[in-house]
């Protein structure tokens, strides 16, 4: 994930503002901790939501990337009742919808850290 670093203050924002000379693009840490969360239990209005008509509730949250910024994100790969503030998460790419041309649309998300991979 790419954020923007304010050239004057060093403050980091996400997403990186496009075409704004005050910000330099900067890679964000790929791991962090859940800062807050909720479950979206009803289908958001379309537009702007492009997820499937056959709605399934999904988790979203804020993840604190240490020393950087807190980002809002879909949460994935975790049962709703197992989500806790402080839990360690890492970035993944997940499908969100299929567009009119049949292509899969993806988004960033955060999933629990895969310990095998982490220690492998």
């Amino acid at each position, binding site marked *: 994930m790419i954020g923007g670093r304010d050239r004057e203050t060093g403050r980091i924002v996400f*997403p990186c503002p496009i075409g704004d000379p005050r910000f330099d693009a900067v890679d964000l840490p790929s791991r962090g901790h859940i800062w807050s969360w909720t479950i979206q239990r009803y289908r958001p*209005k379309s537009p*702007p939501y492009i997820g499937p008509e056959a709605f399934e509730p999904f988790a979203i949250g804020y993840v604190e990337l240490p020393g950087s910024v807190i980002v809002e994100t879909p949460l994935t790969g975790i049962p709703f009742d197992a989500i806790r503030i402080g839990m360690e998460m890492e970035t993944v790419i997940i499908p969100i919808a299929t567009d009119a041309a049949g292509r899969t649309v993806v988004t960033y998300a955060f999933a629990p850290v895969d310990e095998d991979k982490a220690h492998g």
Partner: protein
Amino acid sequence: MADVFIVGVGIHPFGRTDGLSGLQQGAYAARQAMADAGVEWKDIQFGFGGSDASGNADTIVNELGLTGLPFINVKNGCATGGSAMIGAWQGIASGQYDIGMALGFDKHPRGAFNAMPAEYSLPDWYGSVGMMVTTQFFAMKLQRYMEHHGITSQSLGRVSEKAFNNAVHADHAWRRAPVDIDTILNSQMINDPLTKYMFCSPAEGGVALILASEKKARELGRTSVRVKAAAVRTRPPGSFEVFAPCLDIVRGGAPTLLASAAAYEMAGVGPEDIDVAQLQDTESGAEIMHMAENGFCADGAQEEWLAEGWTQVGGKLPVNTDGGCLACGEPIGASGLRQVYENVVQLRGLGGGRQVPGDPKTAYTHVYGAPGISGVTILQR
């Protein structure tokens, strides 16, 4: 600045009124407020007013008469009503006018407010993935607050239960049937930890206030309610607001803290002097967080406050005596003025079944909303 009095109040009942536009509901409230003050439209020297979704308030002259008065439109999100009142207050406090109107009305479609990313300078993907949803923000602000300050779901339920109990006695409220706490807690989950009965709904309604100078108030024989403070503030750095794809790790203040401090200073009173308060309750957790943000209790103390019933009508600080947004719904332009209307009713002792006992003397209102704006008023009898 000269003293300013509220000499008349009017309200069109909140909820759903088929066949009446938002503006017409505003006109209804305006006529009622003028009758309450004992004045006519031709006597009103100026006005401030607004709606979020029902058009320009200055078209009220089509409904009430082409008297040529200056009428200024206010479009300030959830603080529209509060800002209209501040405009009217300043016009009189400055000595420029003797009598004026603050007006707010609205009529929203059913369901959650529908926002598009471009309107908020956000990338399209933010909405595509399902994060352009106001209720998520309230849930996530609350989820973290509950974890840090030991607030339970039981307390969320108690806030909603109180709202519906109070609304039974408020003619202008929308949802006027009691709902027991088990039903509230076990109703459909919307955004964890908030269930269906813990959220307010977009609604319809109108409110008008007539403000006057001391000279005019004496002439009208209506000097009972004085405006001690009216303040609106925007957000400070590091606040947590709706539609935020990122937050600073170093957390900051909140617009409510600024508006509240400004109002207390202006009025020369503190939270301990307040006898009744109307606090923004977009959802039940908002009322809980706003109890602390407005200085009425420490973070976390709300558990005890609610368990002991201290914010009920007979408690030490009754909060949202007409059921608040939870029971009245939220017509954005009118909501802040409804709170002031309710406080005028309470200070006059006309609350009936919801009247705060012990002759309340000092009353507080607080609105909060997108994109990080807060308005506070303090009235005194």
